């Protein structure tokens, strides 16, 4: 079994940090790797670039969600204190071979699987609490199995007061720009409230490929990442795929009148030169609230990095204002980068 399994591409989940190597987005082009969408499907957690101190707890939570046997590889990054044993790669050239070797030794057992970083304790103690020992109280109360239940709230679409689900999403979700953490309140799959917890990292944008992936065209996304060598062929495939019809007109309209459809055209025809969107005081709330999940993800991925950071900075968010100094720092950094 282990022998067969070591022939398969290495399933890697990429946790992208600040200053991630430019090659990160193009890792999926390597046929000895599969870049998976969820930590549940990964054998190796690849940390690319520096994870800011505020996101290290998130990295540790992510790490513990991988199934055993698992390993972590840091790529151009310092291992965190808890993961000091992990493999570190500085040189770009041998990353793939390190990943392959690590996976083989995981399968053969010579590289022991990494233990949990977080304590093995439920979010709230529930065992033996309450009348049925499940930690709950009455119908809706308490923390059954460790967590409270969602409670009702008003909805602006159809007025039914059903449960609102609030959670932080990100920073290592494949459909979010790397680094972005949003607190979203959802009713069903419609976004009711948005606030920004952590700004996306500045860096080379791959919004075009991200959009294609969201539209269910991962193969074309890869082709775009490969570079615009076979231009005519690629353009024909894009046209035939019906992308224009798939993106609703007027979705995610920015003040200068550009919508997702228009930005998509520009991102795919000329990925090297994304034109800046004039953001003009628009916040994420103006763009995302009231959208269904898929539409919201399209909007979120249709901006170049700099505009998105500006939009996020415009979004009211209690957490960010507390760390104002930190965020200002990032802004300066971004200006420096570009």
């Amino acid at each position, binding site marked *: 079994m282990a022998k067969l399994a070591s022939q398969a591409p290495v399933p890697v989940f990429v946790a992208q940090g600040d200053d991630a190597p430019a090659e990160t987005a193009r890792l999926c082009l390597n046929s000895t790797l599969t870049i998976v969408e969820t930590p549940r499907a990964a054998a190796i957690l690849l940390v690319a670039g520096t994870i800011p101190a505020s996101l290290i707890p998130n*990295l540790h939570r*992510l790490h513990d969600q991988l199934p055993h046997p698992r390993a972590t590889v840091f790529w151009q990054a310092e291992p965190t204190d808890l993961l000091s044993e992990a493999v570190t790669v500085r040189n770009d050239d041998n990353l793939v071979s390190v990943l392959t070797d690590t996976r083989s030794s995981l399968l053969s057992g010579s590289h022991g699987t990494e233990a949990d970083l977080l304590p093995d304790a439920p979010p709230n103690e529930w065992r033996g609490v309450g009348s049925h020992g499940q930690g709950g109280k009455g119908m809706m109360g308490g923390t059954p*199995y460790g967590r*409270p239940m969602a409670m009702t709230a008003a909805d602006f679409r159809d007025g039914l007061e*059903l449960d609102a689900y*609030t959670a932080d999403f990100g*920073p*290592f979700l494949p459909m979010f720009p790397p680094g972005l953490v949003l607190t979203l309140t959802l*009713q069903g799959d419609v976004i009711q409230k948005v606030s920004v917890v952590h700004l996306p990292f500045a860096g080379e944008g791959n919004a075009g490929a991200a959009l294609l992936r969201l539209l269910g065209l991962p193969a074309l996304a890869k082709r775009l990442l490969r570079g615009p060598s076979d231009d005519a062929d690629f353009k024909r495939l894009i046209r035939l795929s019906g992308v224009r019809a798939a993106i609703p007109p007027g979705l995610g309209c920015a003040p200068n009148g550009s919508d997702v459809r228009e930005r998509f055209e520009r991102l795919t025809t000329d990925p090297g030169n994304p034109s800046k969107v004039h953001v003009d005081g628009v916040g994420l709330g103006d763009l995302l609230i009231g959208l269904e999940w898929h539409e919201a993800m399209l909007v979120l991925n249709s901006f170049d990095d700099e505009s998105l950071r500006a939009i996020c900075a415009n979004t009211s968010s209690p957490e960010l204002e507390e760390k104002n100094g930190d965020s200002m720092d990032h802004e300066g950094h971004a200006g420096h980068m570009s």
Partner: protein
Amino acid sequence: MTTLITIFLVLGLSVLFTAGLRTASGTDLADHITNPQQRPVLGGSDPKMHAWQRFHVRYYTMTLVFVAFEMEMMFMYPWAVVFVEEGPKALAEMGMFLTILSVGILYGWREGIFRWE
């Protein structure tokens, strides 16, 4: 009778196959799933509450219209069998039936039930 036996046999085999997959993947740590491993995937964030909720379905009116419309299928199946025998009469009758039901869909469309409410 054979149909029922086949269906149950296929069901049984599928359940066995899935169970077989689980047995085949028995690693040393398979049985002990720790609390941090059980946390639902949110890309590194910690959920505040259970995901199970009074989920706000955005298309519920559509489902009601769908259930009513789908009943028509139950009439269409026997109709299809005798269609050629009965000829134009059958065509006219089903045409009328479908027209009546289409009015319901048009009404729903006009009231905007195929949107995400």
